[in-house]
């Protein structure tokens, strides 16, 4: 198992390096002088330009520039924002936490909704409840998340006024920030008003975000449960007269590994779908930050944002794989390769 884990870790490091190369080269694809692109200096003379260039190492070979970029990035230095004139890392921190809060809420929601429905569908395999579930799943992953978000705003916010149309918390809630996750902050400071406001803001974006992942979760879990139910050990358990709850617990345990993998893969689209959703709900996360930076041509922020988002995706995949290895005794004992 240790070997598998180490291999996986090494692979992650390689992928992270590759991600950094892509992100570094990406911004070099922009036509124009890097001085203008990175420093946003409006009017500079040729001497100033040359000075800036050597000051920031833009006159050195590209491989040296990459080395410098990587060395700085590892230390958390991602350059300065052109429009806001603060270090990029200062902008990324709170935005990252906002995205994390949304993604956690979305994931929890998918599990809470998806697992019972998948169980129900698998129990009623081939009958109406099952067919309705499959149709729902198909609808779920065909739904453009941003449209779902807008439709919920239209009906539930604009017309019924049940939820705010966007943002993360009411300004008047007076929340003290500690962790950056507003729900957690509200709970530890005992600010019930802020908790209510934060949750109210969280409802619509997390439902929209959860739609697609719930659909895949339902499909995969249902599929594995059905195939497991045809395996011999289930018949054996049944023959021993085990009750339904115990039986389903055994089956869920076996269906967990593939489901975790799919949820891990889906996490990427969750983060991705989040980019567009954050724009819809004015949710001040990484996605909104990146899109705003693209519009303002603030490339250091775009670069930093893409890097952080891709890196967190890679790390989440690692965590998911580790969970998978721990959950599946066959891999744990090194019997089955991947």
């Amino acid at each position: 198992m240790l070997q598998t884990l180490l291999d996986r870790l090494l692979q992650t490091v390689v992928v992270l390096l590759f991600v950094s190369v892509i992100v570094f080269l990406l911004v070099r694809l922009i036509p124009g002088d890097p001085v203008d692109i990175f420093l946003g200096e409006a009017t500079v003379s040729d001497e100033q330009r040359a000075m800036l260039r050597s000051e920031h190492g833009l006159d050195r070979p590209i491989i040296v520039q990459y080395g410098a970029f990587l060395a700085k990035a590892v230390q958390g230095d991602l350059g300065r924002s052109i429009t806001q004139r603060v270090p990029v890392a200062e902008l990324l921190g709170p935005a990252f936490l906002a995205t994390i809060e949304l993604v956690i809420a979305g994931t929890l929601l998918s599990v809470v909704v998806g697992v019972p429905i998948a169980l129900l569908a698998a129990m009623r395999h081939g009958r109406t409840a099952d067919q309705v579930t499959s149709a729902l799943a198909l609808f779920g992953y065909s739904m453009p998340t941003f449209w779902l978000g807008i439709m919920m705003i239209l009906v539930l916010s604009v017309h019924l006024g049940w939820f705010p149309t966007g943002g993360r918390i009411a300004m008047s809630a007076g929340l003290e920030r500690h962790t950056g996750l507003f729900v957690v902050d509200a709970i530890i400071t005992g600010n019930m008003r802020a908790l209510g406001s934060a949750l109210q803001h969280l409802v619509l974006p997390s439902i929209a975000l959860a739609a697609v992942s719930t659909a895949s979760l339902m499909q995969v879990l249902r599929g594995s449960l059905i195939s497991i139910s045809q395996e011999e050990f289930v018949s054996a358990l049944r023959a021993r007269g085990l009750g339904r709850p115990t039986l389903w617990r055994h089956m869920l345990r076996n269906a967990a590994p593939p489901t975790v993998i799919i949820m891990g893969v889906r996490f990427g689209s969750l983060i991705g779908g989040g980019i567009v959703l954050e724009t819809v709900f004015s949710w001040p996360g990484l996605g909104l930050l990146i899109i705003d930076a693209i519009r303002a041509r603030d490339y250091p922020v775009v670069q930093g944002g893409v890097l952080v988002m891709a890196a967190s995706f890679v790390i989440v995949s690692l965590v998911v794989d580790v969970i998978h290895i721990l959950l599946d005794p066959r891999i744990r004992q090194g019997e089955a390769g991947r």
Partner: protein
Amino acid sequence: MTARRFSLPPLYVTLALGFCLAFLVVGILAPWLAPLDPNAQSLLNRLRPPLTEGHLLGTDVLGRDVLSRLIAGTRVPMVVATAAVSLSVLIGVAVGLFSGYVGGLVDTVIMRLTDAWLAFPFILLAIAFVAVLGPGLTNVIIALVVSQWAVYVRLVRGQVLSLKEREFVLSARMIGVSHLRIAVQHILPAIMPSVTIVATLEIGIVIATEASLSFLGLGVSASQPTWGAMLAEGRAYLASAWWLATIPGAAVFLVVLAVNVVGNHIRDMVDPRSAGAATKA
């Protein structure tokens, strides 16, 4: 997943297939089908609700006919989906075929790169590329190809690995058929069914992604009506004109749904085992 999949009653599949074909036909014939000029403004007829006389789906804030814009808007997703998916298939299949067939170190390096590429969230890569290349039809297509090709490399390479040890390939080798001919004439046809299935399902993803890009203002230029851009414009008028954001979004949803229904059906028909896992990535 070996479980039997739920397959939709054929009526739904037929309907979905009809819808896909209609989308294709409308996309091709858009300039002739639109009842009015999609860009003609009429300030007297601003924000007319659907079912207004002369404007079946109403008008937008500049008095432009929503139905005509919707029809004109089929063209971009159709062109983008066709071009992006076929180019991705072309590149992905070629690389995967090469990598799997040659094997060894080359294969290891290519697969490591592919895995790393797939480590990026798909839409993030597309957004990042359009951001640096700038909006426009070609750039959107490039961005989508860049973020998609790797899916096919994975799929094809895995199949080639097992196929190249099969008897029909080995016997072709023995009678002296060249490597290129074996790869193209013997192995390629065997992998095409699963590539077709994945490509069909990817069409849905590409259409949805194009709409997202247009919605974010990173799509094809503003002069060309697209569903995503219409949605973005309509967002500002949610309180006064519900149809502006509702209708184009519903169009995206229906097309993607129809493509997925057809794709799922093809998958269940051709091979219930092989395709399922690959498309989830």
